[in-house]
């Protein structure tokens, strides 16, 4: 299957007030194949959102790209001019943000904010056509009486409705790649399910890069999984490979932390410790000091990335059985 997006040894970091750059993403490498949904999982602070924003080239000012490539349809996005990026954003690659409450402009009405995407990328459409397209799109994401809603402002929408508006906005140009950054985190559970349902329907039209720390969401939607820890890809593979045969101790930990119906009332497993800050990363494996199978080598040398099957890779010093 042709590759839509390829991360190739992408590294970036953040500059602090003294101008020192602290590396965050280190040699991030993974692919998104055309028409597939990839889930990027990991705890908060693992660099998932930064990975997303790197694709859109919307990183904050303090971010510094240290190397590697992000290739979209054969072209390195990092080499594009600002003007070329503007033509890609919203049209080819679109993004749904985590916080529906703050991601919409409070002083502009919904119709305008969605229509804006078409105004930018579809100069052939007139006002009337844009209005109709926006109304249809709102209907598609399940907003009742969309005609009336066009003139309303974000504060007149509930959280779930706003996230639907965000989805409508991101998908109105039918992008090839839809990036969703924890699209359901800020919503309550019933609304989460509805929003996931909408995303599930829309993902068939293109590829999806879904960032989440909710493995349940991944299982429901994704074909492939990339597990990130402290700015590194520790394990990646197809959904089945990761869920049935997690290899990296971190992935295993994440899996063990999912509550199941049979888990009863005993305390849920949790990985001890927290993700280190980017200025406290160890020279070797960044997970070393939280790892239960840690040995001396882990602290000193970055572990190699090993291929376990055609699509299953793990970055760890432990020995794993290669499966075909």
């Amino acid at each position: 299957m042709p590759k839509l997006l390829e991360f190739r040894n992408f590294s970036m970091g953040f500059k602090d007030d003294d101008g020192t750059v602290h590396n965050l993403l280190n040699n991030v490498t993974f692919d998104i194949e055309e028409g597939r949904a990839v889930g990027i999982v990991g705890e908060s602070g693992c660099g998932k959102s930064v990975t997303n924003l790197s694709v859109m080239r919307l990183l904050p000012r303090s971010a510094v790209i240290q190397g590697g490539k992000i290739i979209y349809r054969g072209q390195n996005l990092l080499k594009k001019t600002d003007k070329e990026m503007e033509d890609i954003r919203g049209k080819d690659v679109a993004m749904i943000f985590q916080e529906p409450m703050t991601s919409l402009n409070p002083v502009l009405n919904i119709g305008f904010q969605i229509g804006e995407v078409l105004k930018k990328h579809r100069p052939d459409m007139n006002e009337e056509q844009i209005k109709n397209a926006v109304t249809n799109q709102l209907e598609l994401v399940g907003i009742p009486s969309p005609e009336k809603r066009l003139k309303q402002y974000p504060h007149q929408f509930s959280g779930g409705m706003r996230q639907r508006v965000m989805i409508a906005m991101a998908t109105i140009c039918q992008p090839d790649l839809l990036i969703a950054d924890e699209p359901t985190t800020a919503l309550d559970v019933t609304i989460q399910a509805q929003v996931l349902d909408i995303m599930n329907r829309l993902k068939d039209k293109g590829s999806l890069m879904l960032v989440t720390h909710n493995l349940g969401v991944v299982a429901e939607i994704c074909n492939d999984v990339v597990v990130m820890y402290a700015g590194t890809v520790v394990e990646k593979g197809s959904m089945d490979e990761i869920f049935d045969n997690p290899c990296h101790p971190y992935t295993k930990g994440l899996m063990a932390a999912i509550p199941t119906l049979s888990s009863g009332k005993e305390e849920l497993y949790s990985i001890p410790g927290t993700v280190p800050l980017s200025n406290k990363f160890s020279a070797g494996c960044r997970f070393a000091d939280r790892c239960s199978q840690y040995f001396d080598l882990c602290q000193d040398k970055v572990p190699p990335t090993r291929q376990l099957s055609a699509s299953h890779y793990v970055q760890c010093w432990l020995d794993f059985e290669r499966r075909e």
Partner: protein
Amino acid sequence: MANYLIRRILKALLTIFVSATIVFFIIRLMPADPVTLLVDPKMGPEVQQAMMQQFGLDKSIGLQYVIFIQQTLSGNLGISFKTREPVTTVIMQKLPWTLLLLFIVVTLTLVIGIPIGMLAAKKRDGLFDKFINVLIVMGISIFIPFLSFAFLYFFAYYLKLLPTGGAYTPPPAKGFDYILDVARHAILPSLTLFIGNVATIILYTRNSMIDVLKEDYIRTAFSKGWNEKYVVRRHALKNALIPTITVAGIMIGSMVGGAVMTETVYGWPGVGRLIYDSVSSMDFPVLQGAFITLAVSVVVMNIIADLVVAWLDPRIKLGG
């Protein structure tokens, strides 16, 4: 909307009433006694008595206050101790001059201040922004009389380019020459007031613009593919201007009361100068009148600023 306006106006009336009361008592707390200034010892006691009666000074403070409030409500601000003219007439003579200055200064301040503030925010921490920051600190902290004297010395005395004071060269010229003459006289006072006010406007615009540019919805706008120019204009400007408008409202309101120091140094015949003169000559009724004018204009401008903000920001529900 109508409901909101009525409540807002009632609140405004209360504010004006309270400030009128404070003005009345504060003036009477001044250590000097107007009677001794007003009454010539050479006058006969009957004349003295008649004068005291004319100005209501023979009554107790409490009664004076009741009369003052009654009269103010009916639009009568009393009679000037000094010129024996009605206070409203005195203020109305001075107000146009202050309004002229105000119009020039506010227009310049907003037209120049807002774009500079936006640009500084867009290029924050850059060379331009750092330079503007220095200017803001200087503009806000400079002592107005000092600036006025410096301007006077340089432009009027040293370069002899501009007049030293007043609003026109007496006797007033006719037609276009008169306008030109007034304009020449207005340059220095306008410039002085402009410097202090524009610094405030730039500061507010810049800071709120920087805050707004960090908002999530700005990132959303960029994610749609729009360039910075569009995002700033369509998505940031409206939000960023809200604090600026509130500040501008207060600024305009308080400038109706005249810029006391600026008008005094330049001899500009406006309300500010009137306040200064009235303090020197213990002209209580005029002083009261000027302060009430000031209070009314601040309150009115505040309402207008609130309405503009409500128009910009749909989250503010006027009905609720």
